[in-house]
């Protein structure tokens, strides 16, 4: 899973706008707890991810996000003892003692799981649709080494994954039983230093270490830059306002209280519209 230029509006937007868009969605996921608002946000992020990612990448990301969300829900349901409505008695467990699964802990766990899944999908959006080199240029003026480290990290992971796949293919061609996953990981991690040296040599050759700031590009803001930048501002604003005004209330303990208020429905509709509207414009979208 890596950045590849595609013919979508988010790819057409500059990195600053794409980054702000992804951050605003993640911020909204962290701030909002109401099930309707969070559900709408999840739909929005999923819709955006479906537009920008390939089907295979999206399937993997959704499977990982769903697994993580499910795990968060299960852990919360088993560990949290709050809640009045017992739905499942697990009896006296060795470490946990008397364990009862409550409806409240399960629902709150589902909310936390959904939040985790949305955050994973925001990360997916960023990875596949925001150009990491542009992000590096963006932050180069702010923090030279941190930006380099962050970019190298995000670029090295897919490279190592490709290395692993190549190693696995090579090992499968050899006679005898297939190698274990542990051996494969050992071989891939052993190559990390080589890869890092390669990257350092390439940067040296390109004069990155000279540390001279590049001339700042003064490209005019495109319609996509404005659309995603505006959407980021609106999404962040809606999330902050929703949190501050209590438009999406959720009290999980001791008894579940999550009313679907008109303000929450409006907030959900607003988030959905703001998050997906920038994808409507197709003019100027090219690979």
């Amino acid at each position: 899973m890596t950045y590849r230029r595609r013919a979508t509006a988010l790819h057409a937007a500059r990195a600053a706008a794409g980054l702000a868009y992804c951050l605003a969605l993640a911020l909204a996921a962290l701030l909002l707890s109401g099930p309707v608002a969070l559900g709408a946000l999840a739909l929005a992020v999923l819709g955006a991810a479906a537009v920008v990612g390939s089907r295979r990448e999206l399937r993997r990301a959704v499977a990982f996000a769903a697994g993580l969300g499910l795990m968060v829900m299960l852990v919360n349901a088993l560990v949290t003892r709050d809640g009045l409505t017992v739905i499942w008695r697990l009896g006296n467990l060795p470490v946990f003692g008397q364990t009862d699964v409550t409806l409240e802990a399960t629902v709150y766990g589902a909310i936390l799981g959904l939040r985790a899944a949305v955050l994973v999908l925001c990360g997916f959006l960023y990875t596949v649709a925001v150009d990491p080199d542009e992000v590096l240029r963006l932050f180069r003026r702010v923090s030279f080494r941190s930006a380099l480290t962050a970019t190298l990290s995000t670029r090295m992971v897919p490279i190592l994954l490709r290395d692993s796949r190549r190693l696995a293919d090579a090992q499968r061609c050899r006679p005898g039983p297939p190698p274990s996953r542990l051996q494969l990981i050992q071989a891939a991690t052993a190559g990390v230093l080589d890869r890092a040296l390669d990257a350092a040599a390439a940067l040296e050759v390109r004069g990155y270490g000279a540390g001279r700031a590049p001339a700042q590009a003064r490209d005019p803001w495109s319609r996509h830059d404005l659309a995603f930048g505006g959407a980021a501002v609106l999404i962040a604003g809606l999330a902050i306002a929703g949190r501050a005004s209590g438009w999406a209330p959720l009290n999980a303990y001791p008894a579940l209280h999550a009313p679907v208020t008109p303000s929450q429905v409006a907030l959900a509709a607003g988030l959905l519209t703001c998050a997906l509207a920038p994808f409507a414009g197709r003019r100027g979208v090219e690979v």
Partner: protein
Amino acid sequence: MLARSAALVVCAAVLAGCGLGPGPGTSNVSLRVTRAFGTISVGGADEPKVPGSETVMRMLERHFKVATRYGGGFVESINGFAGASPHLDWFYYVNGVEAPMGAAGTPVHRGDQIWWDLHDWSATDSIPAVVGSFPEPFVHGTGGRRLPVELECAGDVSVACHRVSRELGRSGVPFASQLLGAGSGTDSLVVVVGTWHDLAPETVAALVDQGPAASGVYARFTNGGRSLALLDPRAQAVRTLTAGAGLIAATAQGSAPPTWMITGTDPTGVNAAAAALTRPSLHDHFALAVQDSTHLPIPLRAGT
């Protein structure tokens, strides 16, 4: 093979107490919430019917606004009342006995009397037993199990012994009587009646002599048992009673069932204490000192 394994798993789960839904409920549970060793009432509730899988924490949360810490296992505040100082916290007793585990893991049984109290624990963080839930724990026992009751009386307090027997009988508590010092089972609730001099060889007397940190009783007999010093929540003596002073208190050693003491500086004091062994006299008190007709709940507040 798969079906057999699944059947085994289901059987194990059922034996371990697993099941869908809350399970069968229970009845006649009461809940009281107080502050300052029972002197200030916060509220209470009597529940004729209690849903299944009810714990002390769930029952509290059904009736009061509760804030918790440590994953819901520790009560931080009830109806907004929280520990204002580092040595002020919520404690709870079921049928007058300090629970051995957290409220979230303590199930509620039929007839239980649950008592939450916010108090200063600078003298001791463990008060094994209190008398304010009388006639509990004699009627319903602890942990849903009724315990055998033994009444041990000294030879010189027959009137007091008779009064205690009558009160236990009135509460419907079957008990066995024997002379003080005859020994009792380790799984019995024991009521000892006698002057402090009579009780001196008993283990519980040794605990009380060591102060609240060992016994949870905020009173101490001095002067060879002829004086009774009443302590405040910080274990400082604030009043001393002499002739005719009585005491009703309960304590326990380790995880053993509590022992109740009906005692005094002399037989008159023991009689006065025995006369105070009633539900209204003991209600919401950790222990009770008596002199003549004056009842002094202890720990005593300074200036009382």
